[in-house]
């Protein structure tokens, strides 16, 4: 009797450990959080859950590819759809971290130019701009060149702790024109120039790692100037903060929806991505949150554009488009050098 009970529980334990219920978990979407995700949850994630009759959960990360690579390697994929920045998407596609998208399920024709890659479907445009608190500083810097003038504009400056965007900003501060930034940054001399420019203000730099930090730093007065995500800055400005949106300091790119390789819900994930890039749910989302979708019909919608002056795609001509090919090719080298430079 006892032996049989032991055997039963052993069989049960083995079947649990073997991961039998892998199919049973909910569809998991992971993004960068913030106001966008709060609104996307309502219109995109739960919108799909309602229309397809499946349960959808969502979670937040800071873009760490290692977490995804590790779950792919361990064949224990707990995330299905992930929001990814462009260079990481391309690298993850080469690595086999993301599935190649199924364009028979996702309609490729609906995207703006550059809105699709082998492993990703354009989700939303994002950008960073310089901002500061006009209640503390009435007349702050209007350009990156002025931001580098620490005599005229004293105080700490906060940038994202990545070479991407920081090196472009350093070159623009050093007098390189928008259209020449990547040409210069592709040369050793240009990279030296960018780091030399950063060296000049290094003592005044405070790095941020998650999107909420630059707003906290500026709101608490800890940092005088920060380069932060436009969506969050615009939202704070809309809620009463005196933050100017300096469009000439814009650097922008797209985030993409991708499917984690080996996801047990691959087919469902593809259908979900198609739903999340359809005009109807995106138009509903745009009512609540200033988005810059990569879906052409929504990006060009006159009503959406007029309602959302903070839309990145309204200001594409004023800003610098972050060059994905450049960061795919030079990202590894510049990340290494950036980390070494930052640590000394």
């Amino acid at each position, binding site marked *: 009797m006892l032996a049989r009970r032991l055997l039963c529980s052993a069989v049960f334990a083995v079947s649990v450990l073997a991961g039998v219920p892998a199919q049973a978990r909910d569809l998991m979407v992971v993004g960068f959080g913030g106001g966008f995700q709060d609104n996307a949850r309502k219109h995109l994630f739960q919108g799909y859950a309602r229309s397809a009759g499946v349960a959808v959960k969502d979670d937040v990360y800071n*873009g*760490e*590819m*290692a*977490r995804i*690579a590790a779950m792919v390697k361990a064949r224990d994929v707990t995330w299905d759809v992930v929001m990814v920045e462009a260079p990481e998407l391309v*690298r*993850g*596609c*080469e*690595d*086999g*971290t993301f599935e*190649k998208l199924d364009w028979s399920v996702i309609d490729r024709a609906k995207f703006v130019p550059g809105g699709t890659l082998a492993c990703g479907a354009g989700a939303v445009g994002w950008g960073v701009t310089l901002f500061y608190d006009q209640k503390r500083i009435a007349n702050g810097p209007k350009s990156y060149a002025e931001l580098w003038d620490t005599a005229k504009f004293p105080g*700490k400056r906060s940038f994202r702790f990545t070479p991407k965007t920081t090196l472009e900003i350093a070159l623009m501060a050093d007098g390189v024109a928008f259209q020449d930034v990547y040409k210069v940054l592709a040369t050793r001399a240009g990279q030296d120039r960018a*780091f030399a420019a950063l060296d000049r203000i*290094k003592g005044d*730099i*405070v*790095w941020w*790692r998650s999107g909420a930090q630059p707003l906290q730093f500026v709101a*608490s*007065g*800890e940092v005088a100037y920060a380069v932060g995500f436009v969506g969050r800055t615009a939202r704070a400005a809309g809620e009463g903060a005196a933050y100017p949106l300096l469009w000439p300091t814009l650097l922008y790119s797209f985030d993409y929806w991708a499917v984690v*390789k080996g996801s047990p819900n691959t087919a469902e994930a593809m259908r979900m991505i198609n739903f999340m890039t359809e005009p109807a749910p995106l138009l509903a989302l745009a009512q609540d949150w200033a988005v810059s979708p990569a879906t052409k019909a929504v990006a060009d919608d006159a009503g959406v554009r007029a309602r959302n002056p903070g839309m990145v795609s309204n200001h594409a001509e004023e800003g610098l488009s972050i060059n994905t090919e450049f960061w795919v*090719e030079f990202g*590894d*080298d510049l*990340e*290494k*050098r950036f*980390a*070494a*430079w*930052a*640590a*000394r």
Partner: protein
Amino acid sequence: MAPALILVVLALVVPLLVAFATAVRDPELREAMPVTAGLLREWDGRGLPPEPLFEAAARELRAAEGAQALGALSRRLNFERSGMRGMLLRTARAEMAAPYSMALPALDARWGEVATWTMLRRAALGVTPLYLLRAVDLDVAADGSVVAQPEEEAVFLRLFGRTMAIALQVTVVTLLVAYPAAYTMARLSPGWARLATVLVLVPFWVSILVRTTAWFILLQREGPVNAALLAMGVLDHPMQLIFTRFAVVLAMVHVLLPFAILPMVGVMKRIDPRLGRAAASLGATKWQHFRRVYFPLSLPGVGAGGLIVFMLAVGFYITPALVGGNSDQMVSAFIADYTTSTLNWGMAGALALLLLVLTGLVVGLVLLLVPRLRRRMA
């Protein structure tokens, strides 16, 4: 004895071996291009390799790209030599025809360099000293000899020095604060002692992140500390407290205090109070009694507390990242960055191994010195 041995093996030997294995493993080329790797190992390494090797490389690169398997290899080779990623991708995507020993160099001149092929040959061996060398700011040159890293990429020796310095600073300050606290606690009546223990333990149960964030709020420019100093007229401008070494040491000491106080109290409680009366009856002053009798007897507690604090401090990175400046980041921050964002587990393993060895050396030194110190003082 056996349980202790198992614990040592599980907690020390296994992590050491895993760190070492991760640091020297070099599987990327073998996995992505098995035929090329085999041919590379057979090749004598002199001059340019024969045509079959060129052909295998071209074919396997193309296949690897199609199978989404090129990423790890291009990251590995690009880590050894800048620009390799671009070369591999261009080659994998190019349309080529035999003879490949002509086609590859025509596509990218580096395929015509002996140094490229000898580097590939080293990468085909399955083990590499590269990560361990980079962890001490050395590099493998094109001819396979060991050279120093260029100045702008040499960072780790400085980082290890800084990590040890911060950990020592934190240990010393923690012990100085903890000793009088423990001394007092050891002499309290049982009821008060229980209360004191709870007071020491309460912050211990609060998450490190919360405590560090609390320091951030206290120390910021417009925070209460600066406001109080300004109001008292001590300062006329807010002082830079956050993003400094001072903030890092302060926050770490706060987090680590219980680890020093509790072992000290344990040892001090076991010191026989009759020894004090005996010393007094023999004519010793209070100070002489403390210095010659009490302090040497309490040293094992100080040593244990100090060791625990030091070993924990060496591994900190969240606190320096939140309240420290650029020049206060410690080795663990790089280990975390290599594992979570740049996916360079070889480098993470090499740094972890070195950190473990360095910490082990310091701990060994202390274990050797404390008994001697105790004998000399008594």
